[in-house]
């Protein structure tokens, strides 16, 4: 799940559901079969002497351009007692730098017709602007100034202000949202405390309060160096002139020190079944199942994505059809596989309708899981999952901003910016036997069971493995 710097739009605020959708789209890496393949994205990649990677993709179809910069640092890199810091830092990156007074970053971009935002997840932090093509030099200059010269004007008031904003982001996206604390409750149970994904990107209020100006400076010096960043530009520009601008603006930024070693993770199932309950201000209880799986692009990653689809991806999917459509005992059900750079997790979430209980849901979900593990899936189910997922590869190429981010995503995860077609091919190759195999390999293992219950209704908790 990624957390954005800003949700303000002309229409109001983006709901937390939208943010969730955005995150799922990125991590689920969906695919589609038997229709058009995604076209190639011609690109040029090179590295400046200071270590900054540059990816350029020209597309002159509309006179717009997107700049998208990834720093290879996310909430997974946070130290104990500083959860939420990577995202808080992201906010501070918009507060001005040596040559950009407070407030001017946004004012200058808006005056040029540009919009901008940033987001943080467990693996990385990104910053992006999308704009009419003539505004590209401004975006690059602003990004270079904050990459090279953030600290000279950094002070405690900047940190304190964004600390308050982020605490409100936490309230708006987690604390004041029904079931909003379920996600981080599950993470804490699914992963050992030392695991990079054991805490949420938004972080705890206590840790947000504890972040100091010294933390900001150290974090910047450690992670915000050109040798830890990739600048991706997609859209209407001329490569020769933009390369000169990049050299001019970014070339003089000194290389940073060697980066701290990234954690090495060996993914393994949770050691034993864990049962949790969380009281919340909700009308209906909700049941969550979570398993540990594999990291993104591991051999079983794609098949697990398709298992999620077969379970709850459409109206004919196993859980949706039985619980929501046929029996009408559940209000909603979802299943998703969230594979990140170091590790992954699989979740099933069910809300019983009034008059039904989490225990009933547990029994029905387990029946369907056992059927899936014992009998596998039909060719039609597989085709629906593959075809639907593959269509989304095309959609991700519709905007320059989407392409710029995708180039960065594949560059960081697999080292090849234009990996979309190979990614899509992963899903085409999946067989019904693969689905049966991975369902058995991961979903029959111990899991985290969380029941969110209305306040005072702890008796609704699922307390055992229900067969």
């Amino acid at each position: 799940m990624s957390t954005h710097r800003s949700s303000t739009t002309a229409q109001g605020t983006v709901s937390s559901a939208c943010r969730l959708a955005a995150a799922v789209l990125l991590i689920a890496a969906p695919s589609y079969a038997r229709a058009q393949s995604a076209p190639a994205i011609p690109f040029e990649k090179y590295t400046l002497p200071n270590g900054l990677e540059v990816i350029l993709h020209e597309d002159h179809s509309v006179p717009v351009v997107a700049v998208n910069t990834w720093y290879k640092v996310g909430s997974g890199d946070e130290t104990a007692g500083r959860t939420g810091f990577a995202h808080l830092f992201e906010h501070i990156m918009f507060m001005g730098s040596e040559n950009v007074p407070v407030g001017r970053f946004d004012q200058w971009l808006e005056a040029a017709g540009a919009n901008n935002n940033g987001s943080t997840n467990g693996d990385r932090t990104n910053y992006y602007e999308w704009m009419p093509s003539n505004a590209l030099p401004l975006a690059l200059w602003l990004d270079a100034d904050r990459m090279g010269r953030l600290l000279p004007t950094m002070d405690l008031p900047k940190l304190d202000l964004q600390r308050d904003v982020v605490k409100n982001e936490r309230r708006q996206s987690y604390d004041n949202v029904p079931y909003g604390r379920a996600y981080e409750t599950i993470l804490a149970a699914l992963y050992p405390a030392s695991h990079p994904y054991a805490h949420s990107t938004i972080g705890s209020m206590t840790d947000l309060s504890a972040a100091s100006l010294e933390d900001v400076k150290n974090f910047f010096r450690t992670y915000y160096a050109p040798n830890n960043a990739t600048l991706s530009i997609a859209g209407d520009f001329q490569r020769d002139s933009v390369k000169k601008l990049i050299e001019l603006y970014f070339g003089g930024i000194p290389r940073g020190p060697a980066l701290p070693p990234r954690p090495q993770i060996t993914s393994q199932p949770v050691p034993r079944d864990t049962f949790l309950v969380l009281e919340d201000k909700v009308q209906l209880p909700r049941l969550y199942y979570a398993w540990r799986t594999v990291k993104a692009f591991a051999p079983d990653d794609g098949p697990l994505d398709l298992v999620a689809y077969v379970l709850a991806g459409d109206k004919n999917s196993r859980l949706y059809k039985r619980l929501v459509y046929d029996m009408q005992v559940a209000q909603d059900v979802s299943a998703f596989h969230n594979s990140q750079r170091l590790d992954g997790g699989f979740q099933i979430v069910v809300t019983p309708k009034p008059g039904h209980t989490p225990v009933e849901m547990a029994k029905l979900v387990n029946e369907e899981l056992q059927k899936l593990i014992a009998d596998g899936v039909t060719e039609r189910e597989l085709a629906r999952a593959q075809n639907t997922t593959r269509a989304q590869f095309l959609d991700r190429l519709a905007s320059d901003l989407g392409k710029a981010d995708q180039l960065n995503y594949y560059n960081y995860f697999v080292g090849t910016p234009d990996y979309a077609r190979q990614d899509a091919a992963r899903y085409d190759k999946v067989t019904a036997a693969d689905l049966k195999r991975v369902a058995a390999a991961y979903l029959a293992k111990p899991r985290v069971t969380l029941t969110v219950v209305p306040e005072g209704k702890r008796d609704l908790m699922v307390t055992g493995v229900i067969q």
Partner: protein
Amino acid sequence: MAALAAVAGCSQAASVASAPGAAAPAPNAGIDLTQPPTLGAPKPLTLPAVVTRDLPNGLRLMVVEQHELPLADFLLVVKSGAETDEAGKLGTATLASSLLKEGTTTRNSLQIADQEAFLGVDIFAGSGWDATTIQLHTPTAQLDSALALFADIALRPAFPTAELERLRKNRLTSLLQVKDRGPEMANRAYAAIVFGSAAYGRPLTGDEASTNAIQQTDVRRFYDTYFRPNNATLLVVGDVRPDDVERRVRALFGGWDQRPVPAATYGQPPAPKPTTIYVVDKPGAAQSSFRIGSVGVPRSTADYFPLTVTNTVLGGSFTSRLNQNLRETKGYTYGASSGFAMRRAAGPFTASAEVVAAKTDSALIEFMKELRAIRDTVARDELEKTKRYLQLQFPGRFETTGGIAGQLAQLVTYDLPFSFYNSYTQGIGAVTQADVQRVARRYIDAEHLAIVIVGDRKSIEPALKATGIGDVVVVDITGRPAM
């Protein structure tokens, strides 16, 4: 990246293209890296060409070619929505449109879903205010099968009673869950208070009583009355050719029967009351949900451009006054914004934010400051920045097939000519400081605002009373006084 819907573009007629504050350096002078670069002129905007064909049954077809990707969007806009709901049957239009995908004369609900997934297409059907839309997003390789499914859903819905009962049960549960979400509670209470029993005061998805009252005959009547080719336009954007599209559309939609469609009535909202604070109790809420405003303007307003600029200054962008004050200066919220919902009849003007509970009174004081200050002169720099922002990002709305279709749907729903887009840059450019002041004073009246705040009554009510901004009335989500 689904959330990244808005994408900027550039414009033909903007006279100022450089970043503000950028000193214009002499040509070929040494480059000063401490100053933002001076930008070249934006490229001219080439609006997509629209081919319009009218079918004999009154269905208008509008096609835009966009061959970048092998994708197409088909968007059927029926110019009637939830404003047609009858009292006691609120939620009929949204329920009818949800039922379109739940069975046709030749396919049942599961077969429709199976086809959709197998083809890898998305079909959305839904009603809002003033329009009901069905949208097909498809790879063009699947065009024959996808269009057949799309036409079946649009033209031959069966409204099966079993599916109606299933959706009714689903909706009743959703209505129960409204109590979980402060922002949704605020939206309902605010609409009810500002519009009373007029159309826009009603919840789109009805309430418990109306949901229980709706019968199959009601949803069928909505469909039979308003789903007529003479009340509809089919927008097609993507990797298609107009002649080919016309041939397909004539074959699939040519037999659709026309019939006169009654004009909608919107009712009369209540006269504005002196500014009043309406509190809806949500015990223990970590944030207070603010909705502040009044009846605004219809989309046909002659003040469209001045209001667009004025609202952008006030709360329509990140650097707008509300967001700068409440978020970037005070830190009370993750975002504050405002907007005029311009519909066929006058929709609401609303300023909104989710505010940390302990700062509920302080935030209201800041909201009121900004809602008063916008009536004073807007500084020239601020006006120019705002106008450039609107002008220069406007063409970005036309980057994707869905974006283009969405833009055209606005024109169709509100009977605006395509030339509206040619006039946009000029219309924004013509707005003066005097215009902003005139429309702000006319449409934003700080003495007659409905202030709806959903939050923890116990902790926020005394402080709200102490502000003296207005009487405090405790209401429920229907806007009626709470017991």
